[in-house]
């Protein structure tokens, strides 16, 4: 689903990804001890586990920043991967919602979140003797609207996946070869990404979105899913191939009931289907 179907380009991609992995391992060895900003997503899980394999258990620490915008399901995945791969973990509480500049939900909201995250995580890493702090930004991310990247730079956080040119499909493939369960995991950005810019971010709204997404998953939906918050209305984005199934009367009634149970009085299914960064399009941040 996430990989190319062209065997020739797939082979080329695997070959270059293998070379990139060797480059990345050399980069890690040159640093000696590395702290990874770790969410349990595809990219940071790969980077953390590769660092663990390259540097050993004393050479890496995976640091999780926990806050209201971090999905509980993703936290569970992060812990499971850490347990399975012997990854030392440190958890820190972060509180971006208490920053009014973040809570107002401007288009550069991610900057304030990452500023809070790295402002706590980097000193914690340094205090434990980890002089290098890295994140899971990949080469594909560089072309996206990512104001959080500026905060990473300001806190001296490196992005070695992006620096060696790793793309998302390549990271998925290398993750599969490492035996990581995250290799085919859908992307899971923070819950605040479900709120249109300008709609205030509150813990209650984030929990409402999370409850709605969990309820839909419990109906058996797999793959990418977003519940976009529009006040009383939930706009659901699913893979467009699944629209016909979920617009049929019986299943649409189940979907409506599930999301209504999370506190939305109106439920609508997006006709285009899932789009990463959909709310950036809604607000003209990207085309």
């Amino acid at each position: 689903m996430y990989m190319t179907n062209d065997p020739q380009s797939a082979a080329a991609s695997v070959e270059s990804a293998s070379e990139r992995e060797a480059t990345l391992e050399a980069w890690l060895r040159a640093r000696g001890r590395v702290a990874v900003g770790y969410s349990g997503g595809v990219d940071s899980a790969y980077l953390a586990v590769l660092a663990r394999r390259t540097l050993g258990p004393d050479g890496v620490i995976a640091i999780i920043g926990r806050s209201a915008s971090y999905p509980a399901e993703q936290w569970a995945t992060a812990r499971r991967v850490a347990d399975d791969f012997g990854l030392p973990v440190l958890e820190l509480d972060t509180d971006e919602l208490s920053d009014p500049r973040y809570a107002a939900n401007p288009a550069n909201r991610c900057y304030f979140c990452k500023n809070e995250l790295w402002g706590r995580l980097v000193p914690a890493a340094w205090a434990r003797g980890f002089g290098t702090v890295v994140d899971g930004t990949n080469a594909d991310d560089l072309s996206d609207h990512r104001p959080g990247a500026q905060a990473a730079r300001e806190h001296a956080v490196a992005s070695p996946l992006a620096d060696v040119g790793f793309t998302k499909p390549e990271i998925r493939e290398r993750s599969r070869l490492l035996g990581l369960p995250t290799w085919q995991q859908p992307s899971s950005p923070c819950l605040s990404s479900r709120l249109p810019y300008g709609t205030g971010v509150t813990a209650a709204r984030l929990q409402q979105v999370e409850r709605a997404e969990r309820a839909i998953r419990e109906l058996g939906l797999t793959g990418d899913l977003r519940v976009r918050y529009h006040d009383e209305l939930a706009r659901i984005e699913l893979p467009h191939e699944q629209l016909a199934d979920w617009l049929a009367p019986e299943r649409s009634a189940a979907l409506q009931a599930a999301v209504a149970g999370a506190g939305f009085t109106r439920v609508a299914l997006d006709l285009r289907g899932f789009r990463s960064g959909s709310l950036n399009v809604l607000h003209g941040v990207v085309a």
Partner: protein
Amino acid sequence: MSAMFASAADADARRKAERLAAALTNAGTPCGVEPRGTLAVLKASPEIVARLAEPEIRRAVLAAARAEGFTHVAVELA
């Protein structure tokens, strides 16, 4: 002053929604259209809702909405 601008924007959004609703009706998929900024929320009978997922109809609806300046189209579930 700002209320006047808001009112003009509302009137513009309503006109776009009305034109989209007319286009969808003419195409054989009658829907009400509620404008919410650049999001169009479609309201239709369960039979029409089910048909909106058919690839050709879906593409035509998305194109008609885009022509009226809507970046997103969502079908309300009753």
